[in-house]
């Protein structure tokens, strides 16, 4: 006791000296942990146990690293879910399994210099023919399982580079090009022969010239100058290869979509081939009976817009994504384009009008410098490009997936963030549940002893004796039959928490039994301290450390358990994402091999989260270990 007033003085003195010396030693005093400056006695006198633990903790570099990483992950998952909302019902299977990349819209600057002649986009790439006759491809390689039937779409074949290309078109994952000698080239995915020139096509190409080249979901097509159309590739489902005789020879313009092809005929009427009976093929009567004269058409997957010679726009199709709701515009239409779920108009005022779905920023065209008018517009799938008066290109729409896309075409980055929030939350609540249970059982057992102790410990035996996963999936399966979908996540938390309390309960009980017999408790009792205060102030603080370390370590375990349950399909279920269920689809060797991002990325997040928590827990344990302070 007598020492106390003296010590701060000596301390201050030394500080003063150091300060006087140089700023380097101030820095050193602030950040270095050079313990030689303090004697063991001084340290003992001025530190509370909490401070000692904190100081010890900050001595562990790995522990700090873990803490920083963990806080980063939590921040990403909490803030990220607010910034990037998720539409659980949305999926776009055509965008499935695309590797990570955010360069879909990064057109080469040389293309801008040379000027755009033709431009066409696939799901994750675009191809363009410049006014100088050069072919450019940019974006991300879409992936495919059948390697034998594909060539990389981003690698333009040498023969194409050498040829004098006149027409170019991109399908979903393939490109076709035609040169001035009517030779057809194709590269990319070729699972239905969509990049090959069939014999029939070759004879036709030898006889007549091509007016338009187009390609879409796994098929390609040619419109000849004499008004004949020929489609090939995957035509089993959409049947775009069946073209009624009445259309052949009369086709003026073609606008393609995945399931249908819209046709503008020479007499100003409209036709459609492809899937029958869908809204797309139900053309309004006045467009087919010749009462209006159509001059231009544009088709998206679901809806078609047709412009008549009076400047009026006719639209029909599916109401999904509001693609039938034409916004108000002022001016005359000079160009029309249709992409997957959007329609785009180019006006004579240089303005671009677009509407439809907005999942990838298709409705966020960067407003170019005022006074700069658009002279051309191209849109396909989810990418849009406008060529401006001064030759510059403005691109908007889907610029890619940071972590790739999954089997439903959903953005893995968004799902990792939202799944992370669910996984972290399930783990956190499960830890709270298990810790509360463990404290209740452990303390009751430790303080009451006797029959109650025996009963509770046998109960712990029972819970502990059944392996976790079989029991957890059984309970989960039972509850799933009785509870609505919305309660499932809460239920998983309860199950994991309820099966995880036994270890800590035993530790708490043992610690209480140990502390109860110690001399300071006896002393407190001798001093007449109330029983309640002995428990609260003398015994419980000694159990506290144990609980803190255990909570940290079991948080990691419970995150892993949730991911395991969800992985097997008994935890959080799709479409709700969780770090575990994102890997459920990645169990076949072809997915593991070709679509590595679908399992490595969510898997790495689980590992990172669990590892960082374990590092913190480990550092905490060592910091709280009284033996760690022995000099």
């Amino acid at each position: 006791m007598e020492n106390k007033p003296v010590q701060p003085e000596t301390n201050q003195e030394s500080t003063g000296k150091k300060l006087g010396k140089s700023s380097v030693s101030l820095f050193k005093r602030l950040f270095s942990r050079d313990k030689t400056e303090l004697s063991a006695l001084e340290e003992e006198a001025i530190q509370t146990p909490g401070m000692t633990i904190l100081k010890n903790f900050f001595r562990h570099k790995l522990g700090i690293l873990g803490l920083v990483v963990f806080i980063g992950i939590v921040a990403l998952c909490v803030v990220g879910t607010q910034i990037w909302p998720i539409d659980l019902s949305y999926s776009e299977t055509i965008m499935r399994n695309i590797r990570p990349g955010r360069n879909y819209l990064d057109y080469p600057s040389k293309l801008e210099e040379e000027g755009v002649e033709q431009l066409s986009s696939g799901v994750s790439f675009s191809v363009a023919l410049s006014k100088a006759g050069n072919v450019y491809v940019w974006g991300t390689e879409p992936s495919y399982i059948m390697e034998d039937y594909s060539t990389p779409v981003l690698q333009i074949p040498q023969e194409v580079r050498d040829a004098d290309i006149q027409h170019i078109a991109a399908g979903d994952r393939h490109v076709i090009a035609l040169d001035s000698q009517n030779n057809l080239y194709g590269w990319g995915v070729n699972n239905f022969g969509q990049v090959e020139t069939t014999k029939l096509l070759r004879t036709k190409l030898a006889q007549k010239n091509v007016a338009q080249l187009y390609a879409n979901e796994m098929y390609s097509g040619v419109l000849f100058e004499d008004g004949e159309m020929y489609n090939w590739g995957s035509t089993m489902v959409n049947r775009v290869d069946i073209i009624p005789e009445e259309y052949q020879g009369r086709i003026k313009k073609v606008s393609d979509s995945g399931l249908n092809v819209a046709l503008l005929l020479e007499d100003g009427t409209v036709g459609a081939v492809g899937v029958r009976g869908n809204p797309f093929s139900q053309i309004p009567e006045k467009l087919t009976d010749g009462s209006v004269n159509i001059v231009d058409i544009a088709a998206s997957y679901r809806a078609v817009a047709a412009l008549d010679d009076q400047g009026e726009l006719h639209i029909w199709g599916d109401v999904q994504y509001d693609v039938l709701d034409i916004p108000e515009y002022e001016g005359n239409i000079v160009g029309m384009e249709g992409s997957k779920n959007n329609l785009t108009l180019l006006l004579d005022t240089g303005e671009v009008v677009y509407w439809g779905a907005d999942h990838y920023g298709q409705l966020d065209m960067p407003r170019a410098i005022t006074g700069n008018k658009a002279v051309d517009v191209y849109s396909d799938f989810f990418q849009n490009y406008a060529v401006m008066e001064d030759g510059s290109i403005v691109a908007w729409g889907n610029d890619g997936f940071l972590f790739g896309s999954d089997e439903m075409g959903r953005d893995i980055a968004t799902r990792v963030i939202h799944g992370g929030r669910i996984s972290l939350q399930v783990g956190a609540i499960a830890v709270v549940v298990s810790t509360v249970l463990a404290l209740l059982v452990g303390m009751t057992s430790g303080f009451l002893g006797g029959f109650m102790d025996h009963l509770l410990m046998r109960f712990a035996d029972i819970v502990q004796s059944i392996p976790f996963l079989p029991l957890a999936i059984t309970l989960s399966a039972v509850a799933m039959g009785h509870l609505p979908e919305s309660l499932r996540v809460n239920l998983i938390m309860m199950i994991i928490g309820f099966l995880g309390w036994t270890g800590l309960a035993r530790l708490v009980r043992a610690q209480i039994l140990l502390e109860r017999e110690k001399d300071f408790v006896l002393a407190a009792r001798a001093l007449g301290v109330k029983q309640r205060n002995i428990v609260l102030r003398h015994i419980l603080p000694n159990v506290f450390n144990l609980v803190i370390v255990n909570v940290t370590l079991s948080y990691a375990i419970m995150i892993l358990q949730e991911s395991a349950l969800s992985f097997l399909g008994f935890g959080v279920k799709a479409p709700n994402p969780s770090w575990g269920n994102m890997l459920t689809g990645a169990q076949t060797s072809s997915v593991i091999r070709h679509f590595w991002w679908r399992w490595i990325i969510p898997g790495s997040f689980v590992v990172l989260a669990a590892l960082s928590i374990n590092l913190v827990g480990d550092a905490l344990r060592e910091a709280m270990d009284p033996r760690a302070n022995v000099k």
Partner: protein
Amino acid sequence: MLFRYFIKRVISLIPVVLIITIMLFTIMKLMPGDPVRMMLNPALKAEQYETAYDAMFRKLGLDKSYPEQYVRWMGNIFQGELGWSSLHNKPVEDAVAEPMRNTIILNVFVIIIQLAITLPLGIQSAVKRGSFLDSFIQFFSIATYSMPSFFIALSLIFIFAINLGWLPVGSMPLTNKLTGFAFIGAWAKYMALPVTCLVLIGMASTIRYVRNAMLEALSNDYIRTARAKGLSEKVVIYSHAFRNALIPISTIVIWNIFRLFSGSAITETVFAWNGIGHVLVKALNNRDFALVTTMNLFFAVLGVTANLVADISYGLIDPRIKLE
């Protein structure tokens, strides 16, 4: 003395096992789905179906009260009738026999390899505390401890089966026509990855356990005495310290031996190994609850027994421990 303790413990286990059976019976009764419908031929005509349904309903004793059903169920289990697996369409004991064999084969190798690796590593890590080896083992064990088992399994498949092409991706070896070395080779090829995966999963905790046990033993005074006497370090570590660390280590070994029978749901599922864990997941996906309940009961009894054996082994290993 030991015998009396044993009897006492076995008697104290009876209520525990009873509670487990009641719990599992309740869970079984809560399971969604109709057990009668699963056992009937769905092709039956409506009237025939109804009579068959009623007959089966009564045959299964579902018209009785829950306590009566419980007693009946327990009686069947004691007579060796574990229930009817609707997924495999045969008695549960027949349905799980082969998967159980496969799981045991896998786990024998896992346990042998795991102990062969973890014991020396754990001892070395404790003896050379704070060395590079120790910190490396510490970090390695935290890292593997932080990996979900499915991630380890997928990574192993990715590296060894797909990229290097050394080993098959999964499933069971076809050994009908193989003999001798070819037979062993086929099994080894298919077992290599699941065994590696299970060893990696279990290694971290065992190493830490052995290390802590050894550290505890090495901190005793008799170690200092032994060293002071001039005994060689080998004798000090293996004869003095290790033998005293055996009690905690024996717990691990006993638990491992009992774990022979419990399959790993995830590893077996990912590697398509026809083991008990895989069968359990399939049974749950197909609502084959008789199989699930029986297996859970089996695991629970196994766990309780392992606890008992571990307790008794303390007395056998360390004569100072008096079992009461």
